[in-house]
């Protein structure tokens, strides 16, 4: 698959140009995919893939440089007694903490993702949002996770939301842009589909479900709708867009169901950290516990894994 087409669009897709979603069909499809049983060597392979796709995240008001350093250390050495495990894809922090993370991660190859644009509410002026993105990029962020203005989206000001994403993408420069739709606030799958199309047409490199601050966060139905939007956009334009479900995925078993959904919707090409990420904090330890279980045959305890 090749990357093509610098974006040329300037007009946001209107709701009546967007495919409407069959909610019952989506839920049935997700239920069927969720019932797949992945065992033995396939399971180990899936678990390792999940580890390599995790954006290890800390986005709390109580974050300190010390906490960020600890998280970075965890990202680099997940669990010493397990051989052949990959490191996570990225750590995800606030812009204030990017410099600290950059120092801690060095040349480990782990990306630094930073939320920006008045995360999580998105309630700030466009200029303030752009300044925040530029700050994060200047400090060394490789990826920017922005939030869309849900208020404007729900008011029907699609063009304003679209234009803001376009400006953010420009402000990112070389950094990748992930666009958080906050699907928990959008209400219907039709709006999720519309927001996905809008974000991709505006130049998003990734679309992401949630901030993790609103319930419900990532769900399988929402993820499937967004994956279908990515597929249709790829057929239309030839450009691949990545997907990041975030929030509420804390068990390995659930993460495997996301991988099954990904595999069946977008195929092998997306099954890499470059095109699919999990935004999570406690997922990594559960995956490590499952890998250890596969190795030893004994159910594991959180007492023997580093806190994150």
């Amino acid at each position, binding site marked *: 698959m090749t990357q093509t087409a610098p974006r040329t669009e300037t007009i946001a897709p209107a709701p009546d140009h967007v495919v409407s979603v069959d909610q019952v069909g989506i839920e049935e499809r997700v239920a069927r995919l969720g019932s797949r049983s992945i065992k033995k060597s396939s399971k180990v392979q899936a678990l390792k893939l999940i580890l390599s796709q995790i954006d290890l995240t800390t986005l709390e008001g109580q974050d300190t440089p010390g906490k960020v350093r600890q998280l970075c250390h965890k990202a680099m050495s997940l669990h010493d007694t397990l051989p052949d495990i990959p490191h996570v894809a990225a750590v995800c922090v606030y812009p204030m903490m990017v410099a600290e993370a950059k120092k801690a991660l060095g040349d480990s190859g782990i990306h630094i993702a930073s939320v920006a644009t008045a995360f999580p509410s998105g309630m700030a002026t466009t200029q303030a949002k752009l300044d925040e993105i530029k700050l994060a990029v200047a400090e060394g962020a490789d990826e920017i996770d922005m939030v869309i203005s849900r208020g404007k989206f729900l008011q029907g000001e699609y063009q304003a939301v679209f234009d803001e994403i376009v400006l953010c993408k420009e402000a990112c420069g070389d950094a990748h842009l992930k666009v958080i739709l906050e699907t928990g606030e959008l209400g219907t799958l039709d709006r999720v589909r519309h927001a996905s199309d809008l974000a991709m047409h505006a130049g998003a490199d990734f679309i992401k479900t949630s901030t993790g601050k609103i319930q419900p966060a990532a769900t399988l139905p929402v993820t499937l709708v967004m994956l279908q939007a990515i597929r249709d956009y790829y057929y239309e334009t030839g450009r691949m867009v990545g997907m990041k479900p975030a929030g509420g995925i804390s068990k390995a078993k659930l993460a495997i169901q996301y991988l099954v959904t990904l595999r069946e919707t977008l195929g092998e090409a997306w099954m890499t950290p470059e095109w699919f990420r999990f935004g999570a904090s406690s997922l990594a330890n559960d995956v490590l516990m499952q890998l250890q279980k596969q190795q030893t045959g*004994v*159910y*594991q*305890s*959180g*007492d*023997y894994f580093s806190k994150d």
Partner: protein
Amino acid sequence: MDKNIKTEERFAQPANVETASAPKTAKSKLRTSPASAPRLGVEKTYKLYINGKFPRTESGRYFAVTDAKGRIVANMCRASRKDFREAVVAARAAFSGWSSASAYLRGQILYRVAEMLEGRSEQFVGELTTMGLSKRAAAQEVTAAIDCIVYYAGWTDKYQQIFSSVNPVASSHFNFSILEPTGVVSTIAPQEKCLLGFVSEIAPIIAGGNTAVALASEENPLCAVSFAEVLHSSDVPPGVVNILSGFRDELTEQFASHMDVNAVIYNGEDMNAIKLVQEQAANNIKRVIIRKKPAAPDPYQIMDVQETKTTWHPIGG
């Protein structure tokens, strides 16, 4: 008693469990319309008790339990290692709340369990007589079980004083030792005395602030599984006690090997099983307690699943 159990792939048809409140002679009175058709008894489905809920085993497997006359009484869930895993997750989640509950509150909740068991004593007498006990022996066992719970309810706010100590040391330190609950305790309950034996296992574990995953007697699981209903209606928080029924052969290793279990209690005399428990428990240095005979009520039963924390506090200068 081993031959009382037989594994069935399909559901076996259970006979009525005779209970004191619904003796067989009352059958004709229970007839409802249409007048000619005898009323079908509503049989109880014996299920597992995990996290305050009554799920069936995820494995879908069952085994039939037969009464003293060889008639099938019930199909019992044959729990799998995954059911055990779920139970440990529930017990772990319940631990912080239960261990930090005040001793007084734990005592009150245990009294409540005793009250509920007293109110349902006829049901338990019925189950015990179905399984071959005389009515008198059954009533005695139920009474002893109630008394056992009251006994440990009384100990909840007293064992700490008895077992804690201030220790003389040859330096300027105030040195004292106190007890803290061990954590998640798995217990393979005695085969005999299916109610009293089970209750005598559970009560000291939870009286001391631990949470429990227990395997009911394999030969006669009726009472232990019904005891879940008593716990369920007694303010015992979900996950504090989890009850499985199934085969010792299958589950003993799991009970002993799980890394998130902090102590394992084995009741029985099978030396191979005891060896297995000790070997598997070594993985995370679990506390191992082997009981060849069901334990009599005794505060040392609480002590068995407590850890001693000693503090050296500097004094003077």
